């Protein structure tokens, strides 16, 4: 019983973290059809900026809860600055070209950003541990659960709800859905597709940076943290269906719970299980769990 409870909680916490990281990636692909490998850079920059800001903030002895606002601020700044720079400075020249070529361009950006991180912050790690202990722990028998970890479930749920609300209940969201369905037709109806692209990319970058910012207090922020994240985020997006928000939710939950079950019950297959789930899904639904079949234009 205790193990089942631990699997459920661990699975949901990990799924929430995966969803926060993958949401921006799937949003950008859904709207822009860009497989954005540089999403890992947004994550890493979000973590570094948040870690630096949190370090300075707590050294100054300011109110502890303000550290959480700093994390959101870091995501906002990184998303706006890097997202705008990358979309306006580079990706807009790639629109209309082969999607594989665009993916390679974002991969090149990702590699360069890894070196930029070392140039700016060096190779030594950064710690921003204060917010992690601030929320305390919850004891469930022998299990001691971090409330910070549990709060990720709430954050993921909130992001999911807000994304649904924006897409389905706001004018901008409906315009975005129109672009997702058919960008040419949307442009023909007078929607400023270029502006929607920029907006979507910046929001996607902010979500990637938010993933890094909320992860920073849990880890040692070191060069290379974006690499592993982008691989996992891609797995989630592929399982759920490229560009599907609900797909990302279900993909994250399936992977999160599967991995937690493996760690508790059969640790030898922990590494294997994420990719086994992905292979299984792709074998039966090559387009992912929630991706709609696309009509081919002639």
């Amino acid at each position, binding site marked *: 019983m205790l193990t089942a409870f631990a699997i459920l909680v661990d699975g949901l916490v990990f799924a929430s973290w995966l969803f926060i990281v993958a949401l921006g990636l799937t949003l950008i692909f859904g709207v822009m059809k860009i497989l954005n490998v540089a999403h890992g850079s947004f994550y890493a920059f979000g973590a570094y900026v948040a870690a630096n800001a949190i370090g300075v903030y707590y050294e100054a002895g300011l109110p502890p809860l303000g550290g959480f606002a700093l994390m959101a601020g870091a995501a906002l700044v990184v998303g706006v600055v890097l997202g705008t720079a990358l979309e306006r400075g580079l990706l807009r020249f790639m629109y209309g070209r082969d999607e594989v070529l665009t993916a390679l361009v974002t991969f090149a950006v990702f590699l360069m950003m890894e070196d930029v991180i070392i140039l700016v912050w060096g190779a030594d790690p950064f710690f921003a541990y204060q917010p992690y202990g601030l929320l305390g722990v919850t004891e469930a028998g022998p299990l001691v659960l971090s409330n910070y970890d549990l709060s990720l479930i709430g954050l993921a749920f909130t992001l999911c709800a807000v994304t649904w609300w924006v897409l389905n209940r706001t004018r901008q969201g409906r315009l975005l859905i129109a672009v997702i369905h058919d960008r040419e037709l949307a442009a023909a109806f007078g929607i400023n597709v270029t502006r929607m692209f920029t907006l979507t990319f910046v929001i996607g970058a902010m979500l990637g940076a938010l993933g890094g910012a909320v992860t920073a207090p849990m*880890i*040692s922020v070191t060069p290379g943290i974006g690499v592993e994240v982008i691989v996992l985020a891609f797995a989630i997006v592929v399982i759920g269906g490229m560009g599907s928000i609900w797909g990302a939710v279900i993909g994250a939950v399936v992977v999160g719970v599967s991995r937690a079950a493996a*760690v508790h019950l059969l640790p030898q297959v922990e590494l294997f299980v994420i990719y086994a789930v992905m292979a299984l899904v792709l074998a039966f639904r090559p387009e992912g769990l929630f991706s709609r079949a696309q009509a081919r234009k002639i």
Partner: protein
Amino acid sequence: MKSTIATKSRGGRARLLGLAAAATLAATIAPGATAQGSLKVGIVGFYTGAAAGPFGIPARNAAELVIEAMNAGKVPAPYQSAGAGGLQIDAVYIDESGGTAKVVTDYRNAVQRQGVEAFVGYISSGSCLAIAPVAEELATFTILFDCGTPRIFEDASYTYVFRTAATATMDGVGAARYVAAKFPDIKNYQGINQNYAWGQDSWRDFELAMKALLPNAKSEDSLFPKLFAGQYGAEISSLSVKRPNVLHSSLWGGDLESFVLQSSARALNRQTTMILTTGETTMFRLGSKLPDGIILGARGPYGVYARDSELNTWFRNAYQDRFATPPTYPSYQMAQALLGLKIAYDKAATAAGGSKPTSAQAADGLAGAEYEAFGTTVKMALGNGRQAITETAYGLSKFDKETGTATITDIIRFPAECVNPPDGAKSVEWIQGGMQGAKCD
């Protein structure tokens, strides 16, 4: 890559100082004749990527410091003669990142295009396994300074390849001996190690040694999170449910620090005694965030475990002054490898009679040597005199609130012959056989 280029010969001074040292110290480390000119040495390590912070940069820092001092003849006795065999060391720093194919290509390019004559480097066991046969093929004197796999000299025989640090077998056996000495009544133990060769081998050696030393303690299913996982929530829950008395881990770098941060927030350190075989690299960075009572290793008697000596005092102070942090074990291992290079070329210079020594002469100079390094005595005792053994040490973490520094208590030292297999024995078989012939008194 930054390189230090110095060509001025200081052979005369080296000869005089060498003779002075010979009066009081082993003749093997005093050059009888010195060559003139420079020796181009490749210094290889992870200078980018996740391993740069904990290993590559501290090693490079040590290399810069020691080479500069060596060239100036400022390393304390018995190494006060300038250069290596009178040759000024011209360092070429080469990044180990990028995989074994790139590492091998870089090695070949360095030898064949840049004219690099000797190497000191390599952190990853994968790199070492790939480089050793290439070094042999190119007949280039190469000292491996950090990588842990015992397979290098157990599976092959080399002329030009050396390793001046002990293998990872010592870490596992030393850890098990510490547990057996301090916690002989434990009921069970478990591991959390990265899912690649280093993590798998580290757990295997520890588990085998524990079975030999504490056969009544139960080995639980070990956890193998992937390299650079960063998130250990499920693993910490699993360990909290199973509650092993002792938890072994060879996690390193960001993975280790992330695990410590997450597990201490969830009080895992109060439920189990952790043993972190590379923990010394992170104790100063984590500071008060590293809980008390964790068993820390340093892959040998380095860093906080280094023995007091004039050499150690000089190295420690010079490093602290220059880099504003104490040297950790990768720094010590790099520094002691450079002493090995110096010994090899000092001796080879004598054999060469004033000419520039060949790689073969340098290899003859270091084979079977025994020398005092910054932390301990290095004995080139295995692999036909090409693989070092050293003593090792483990202790418990203790944060000193008064001084605000991380310290170690309850240190136990294990002699080299207690934690390393004898020459000719294979590590795994030696441990499985109950570590026959170990001399621990």
